[in-house]
């Protein structure tokens, strides 16, 4: 098929030749340049000589009617996956709080600037409450586009390179709590409100198996972990100078390797025999 795309330059070519053709119209049969060059491939019905060039081109323009197009393309859905909902979630100047997602993207099309950070899928999110700014920072990087958060509504980014960074404490002063020495553990309880997961002090946890998340009556993980200690079983601490032990270990490893190697050889031999 002749694509309309190919037609465009040809048409331009024809336009360039048009005046000369027109002037010589009376002299010879005014056949279109295109139709002449392409007549070998396409069987065009020979039109009667017409003065207008556009009318000679008319048979090449294709029309696809609505009823035809609405039938759709075969396998379109396999080629055209669902959209991933990427793009800006907050525009410039909008108020955001820490953790608020500002931009979702594939790859780092945008980089995190002031008071922003990048997630593991390159999502830009705010680390401070403030107003979103999209900006370029040529002093920092000539190519990169940044997304930042400023504290004031009228604040601007980027800040000059040698200006002290603007920060907020975002903290409150409270009386210091003395840390509880006892170890706590997770337990579950079932009542009319459903399953409640809470923590109990270590003293209770040690008293025996309790109902734990997942409807299990068992001891706490850390109690299980101390079973050996309770039973008085201790692992020997590693001694660098104990060459006798090192030699035995090395020997065992070498033996094991030799065993595996011999097995490997047998397997191969078996295969070959087959």
């Amino acid at each position, binding site marked *: 098929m002749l694509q309309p795309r190919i037609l465009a330059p040809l048409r331009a070519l024809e336009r360039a030749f048009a005046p000369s053709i027109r002037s010589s119209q009376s002299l010879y049969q005014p056949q279109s340049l295109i139709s002449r060059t392409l007549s070998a491939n396409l069987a065009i019905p020979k039109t009667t000589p017409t003065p207008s060039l556009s009318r000679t081109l008319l048979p090449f323009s294709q029309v696809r009617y609505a009823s035809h197009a609405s039938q759709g393309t075969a396998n379109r859905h396999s080629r055209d996956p669902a959209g991933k909902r990427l793009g800006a979630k907050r525009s410039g100047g909008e108020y955001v*709080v820490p953790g608020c997602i500002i931009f979702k993207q594939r790859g780092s099309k945008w980089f995190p600037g002031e008071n922003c950070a990048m997630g593991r899928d390159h999502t830009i999110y705010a680390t401070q*409450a403030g107003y979103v700014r999209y900006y370029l920072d040529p002093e920092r990087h000539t190519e990169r586009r940044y997304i930042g958060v400023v504290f004031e509504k009228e604040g601007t980014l980027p800040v000059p390179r*040698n200006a*002290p*960074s603007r920060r907020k404490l*975002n*903290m409150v002063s409270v*009386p210091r709590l003395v840390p509880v020495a006892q170890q706590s553990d997770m337990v579950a309880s079932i009542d009319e409100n459903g399953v409640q997961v809470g923590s109990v002090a270590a003293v209770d946890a040690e008293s025996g198996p309790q109902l734990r998340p997942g409807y299990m009556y068992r001891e706490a993980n850390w109690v299980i972990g101390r079973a050996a200690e309770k039973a008085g079983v201790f692992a020997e601490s590693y001694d660098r100078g104990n060459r006798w032990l090192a030699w035995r270990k090395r020997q065992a490893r070498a033996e094991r390797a030799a065993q595996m190697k011999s097995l490997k050889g047998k397997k191969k031999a078996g295969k070959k025999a087959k």
Partner: protein
Amino acid sequence: MAHCERASKPLLQCLRKSYARGLPGMQLQVRGFQSTASVPDAQSEPSQPFHKSPDPSLVTSPRLERRLMRQGTTPIGSRRRRAALQSPGSLPFEQLPYQCFQEARKVLLGDRSAKLEEIESMRQKISRLEAQPIEAGGENSRKSRLTAMQLHLEELKVLADINDPLVKRKFEDGLGDMSKPIYRFLADRKWREYRRKILVQRITQMKVIPDVLAHCEPILDTKLYFGKRQVSPGDYVLAKDSTTAPKLDIQMFERGEKLVTIAVIDPDVPNVETDGFDFKMHYFAVNVPISAVATKVDLSQLSTDSQVVLPWAAPVAQKGSPYHRLSLFIMEQKDNQPLDFAAVKAKETERENVLLRTLQARYHLKAIGAHLFRSQWDETTQEVMKEIGYKDAEFELRRKKVEPLPYKRRNPSSFR
């Protein structure tokens, strides 16, 4: 014996020789090669056995090495090299029987003598120019010419010695004399290869540079010690360790002496009222002389009536507060002129909210060296707080709860 061993035997012997003895060969060498006069070594025969006072350049047994290290001296070079040096040999370095070596030495010696001639002629040129009467209006051009010539002279001094293998060895053994330009040059190059890069990275990545000062181009190698422990730039230091002022080892790579101002400033003092951070000056001393040979500066030993403006204040970080960056800056005083100590002392009495930028502008200082350590809440902080009478010792900082955006609220009244 393998060929290579046979070939390298004289070289090893020579090394042994030049090291183990009172160095007759080396002295000959020094006369031939080095520009500066050599000082004859004082012949002090050690009467003690080797294991009582091990020589750091010869010790090979791990036990003796450990003992030396405990005393504070590190053994020189590799153990293999030290072992090779132990048994005495016979041949001096410059008489090694390799033709190629001898030819190469000739080339190097020729180059060196050419450089020495150049140095002499350059010195004469400089003195001639200095003796000339100043023409009207030619002051600036003469000054710039003189500076260029001085620079060239310094460069020539380095070039004269840079190919000397003994200079290289001395420098690598850490025995280089910093009063000589060649060793200063080598030390500077070594510092710039790694340590300076680390320092610059730490002070820029931890944002000390825009937060405390706008610019700093370090030209001094600064080491910081709390007690015996060396703190690399940006390390965390326990509150108990930093109750006393640190010791500094400031290595200058230029000739002459400089008067510097030393300031330790913390830009991370939390301020709950203003919801921001304040500055605090932990130490401030002026008129501290440093030079390439006198490198040790103990901040607690500086004179209180002519140098220390604000004595050391122990840094503590409140529990929950973000880490404190205690940045140390060494700043050159203008034209090496001493500041008026009494006036500075009278003016700088406040520790809180002193900006180093202000001081820099006020006293015309220029930052030439920097260091950084961090402090955070640790198990020793509470004691230190009690000692220094910290007022918020019983309080900790918690994150302020962020009010969520309206539509994100779990259970707004409009839902019911």
